[in-house]
């Protein structure tokens, strides 16, 4: 027995088909469908096939007639047998056919996590399901899965849901149950693991920021931040408001990945692997935008209501502050307190902008407590806008294609750091010589006739200061330090032209060493500056 029902949601007509459609009732079904569709202003069409058991060719002809009128419409919740028919007859290419999702129940299942947009249940020994609060979460779920897949393909370790299911009227994402602990939990239970956590956290952060994202795959964080700054124009005095907008606009565009919500609850340790979760905020942009959201999570968010930090992260505010500062120092590769503070201030400008806007949009100005919180953030922001003239900073690592023409940006990067650190002229020249030599070696030989990348990383540490520079490539294993020294006592006629650069490098650096690890040639040089 067939049944045809219809309803109109916004501009979309949703027709529900149940039972069997064959030559005995097709004419009647068709009549009922067209009668339903004539009742309202129909923009687009969606046919829910959840209860459909069978469709014959006379039923398929109805679908074709509808296509002539409505173009590419959607068939949803299509069961496996019906899908097979649609696939064989080529209908899956004519219209959008969405397969039915497996239905599961979470009755009596243990709740293992609760977040802003859903609840996580353990469904059996090996799997958990995240059930979304929003009944229309399907788009969001699919978007998050796509982002996670993109990140994984680009080399970022993350957990990907392997199935989407229906749970009652909601949707859920199914994940393999990992024996994992979040970094928040590790810090809460084992404060002595702080330094280890900082190291792992910063390693992964740098890996994310090194990752180049193909154009158009992720939202541009700079544009988002510009929209925040525009929003703030109504809430800031004219002059600081204008400066805020100008500062954000001046941040250069970047196609490098940002996580967007990089705090310790979104990092999980499973075995000895660190996984990143919550990928729905992935974007591209300058790292100052990432540092802004990190500052918010660890410091800014709980600045007025200090209890927020513990409620949100699971550990106390002083721990959060220490973690933030240590991570920032490690990320910037410096122990110079002034430099760390300068970058922190840039991050705070974007951070407060975001916090204020978020709170105002959620009615924060109508509540006395939250208004006081907004006022606190605002006074901090105004003070910073008075002092800061640039939101960008020098990253301490760059990745370039290993070609000779990229010697210029590599040298620029090196010199900018050495000048900032107050390096002597002599040491700077010697470091330039050494880096040029090693980089050109990589460009000429590491990848044979192919191409590849080179990473250059610099840290300024200790007192007296020394520069620690690391060059890395994924080319053929090769230790340049094994090259024999030229005999520098020979006359011009007798001297060979090779080997001079490496010789100079070894002579002028305080330390040079080479290792081949995890598929990379890693050359590290140290020199007092």
């Amino acid at each position: 027995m067939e049944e045809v029902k219809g309803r109109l949601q916004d501009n979309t007509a949703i027709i529900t088909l149940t039972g069997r459609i064959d030559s005995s009732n097709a004419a009647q079904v068709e009549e009922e469908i067209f009668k339903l569709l004539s009742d309202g202003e129909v923009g687009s069409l969606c046919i829910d096939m959840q209860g459909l058991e069978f469709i014959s060719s006379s039923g398929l002809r109805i679908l074709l007639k509808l296509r002539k009128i409505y173009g590419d419409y959607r068939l949803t919740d299509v069961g496996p047998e019906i899908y097979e028919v649609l696939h064989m007859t080529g209908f899956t290419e004519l219209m959008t056919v969405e397969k039915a999702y497996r239905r599961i129940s979470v009755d009596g299942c243990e709740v293992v996590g609760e977040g802003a947009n859903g609840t996580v249940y353990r469904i059996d020994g090996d799997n958990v399901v995240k059930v979304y609060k929003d009944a229309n979460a399907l788009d969001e779920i699919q978007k998050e899965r796509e982002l996670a897949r993109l990140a994984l393909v680009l080399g970022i370790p993350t957990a990907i849901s392997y199935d989407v299911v229906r749970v009652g009227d909601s949707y859920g994402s199914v994940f393999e149950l990992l024996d994992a602990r979040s970094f928040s939990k590790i810090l809460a239970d084992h404060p002595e693991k702080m330094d280890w956590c900082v190291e792992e956290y910063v390693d992964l952060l740098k890996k994310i920021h090194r990752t180049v994202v193909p154009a158009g795959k992720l939202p541009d964080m700079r544009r988002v931040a510009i929209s925040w700054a525009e929003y703030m124009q109504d809430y800031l005095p004219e002059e600081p408001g204008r400066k805020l907008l100008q500062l954000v606009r001046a941040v250069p565009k970047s196609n490098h990945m940002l996580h967007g919500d990089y705090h310790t609850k979104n990092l999980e340790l499973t075995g000895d692997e660190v996984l990143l979760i919550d990928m729905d905020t992935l974007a591209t942009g300058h790292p100052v935008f990432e540092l802004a959201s990190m500052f918010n999570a660890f410091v800014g968010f709980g600045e007025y209501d200090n209890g927020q930090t513990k409620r949100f992260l699971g550990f106390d505010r002083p721990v959060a502050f220490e973690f933030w500062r240590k991570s920032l120092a490690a990320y910037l590769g410096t122990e110079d307190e002034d430099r760390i503070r300068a970058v922190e201030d840039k991050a705070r400008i974007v951070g407060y902008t975001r916090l204020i806007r978020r709170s105002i949009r959620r009615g924060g100005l109508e509540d006395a407590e939250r208004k006081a919180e907004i006022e606190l953030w605002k006074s901090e922001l105004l003070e910073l806008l008075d002092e800061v003239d640039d939101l960008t900073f020098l990253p301490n690592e760059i990745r370039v294609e290993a070609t000779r023409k990229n010697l210029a940006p590599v040298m620029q990067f090196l010199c900018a750091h050495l000048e900032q650190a107050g390096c002597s002229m002599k040491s700077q020249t010697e470091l330039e010589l050494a880096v040029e030599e090693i980089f050109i070696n990589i460009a000429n030989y590491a990848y044979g006739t192919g191409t590849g990348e080179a990473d250059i990383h610099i840290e300024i540490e200790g007192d007296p200061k020394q520069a620690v520079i690391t060059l890395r490539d994924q080319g053929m294993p090769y230790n340049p330090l094994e090259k024999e020294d030229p005999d520098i006592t020979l006359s011009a006629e007798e001297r060979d032209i090779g080997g001079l650069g490496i010789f100079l490098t070894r002579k002028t650096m305080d330390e040079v060493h080479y290792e081949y690890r995890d598929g990379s040639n890693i050359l590290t040089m140290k020199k007092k500056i």
Partner: protein
Amino acid sequence: MNITKKAEDKKLTIGVDGRLDTMTAPELDEELKASLGGVEELVMDFSDLEYISSAGLRVLLSAQKTMNTQGEMTVTGVNDVIMEIFEVTGFSDILTIK
């Protein structure tokens, strides 16, 4: 890098300013190869040279070898930092530095 040339009879003065590195050394090399015919006295004026890497040293060595067969070469205006590089590499013994 910028190269200036001044020729008087069999004497050639070549001024090099800026950076003599992997990217710019080939240009100097070509310039020298094209200009050294018949030259008996070559002066390399490094007064405005800021930086020299091994690629630049190789060009100097090759010029020195050429001049050894047809005359003499001197290097002038060398700053402290570059002098240090000449010393470390033994170039201070090969070159005539004034």
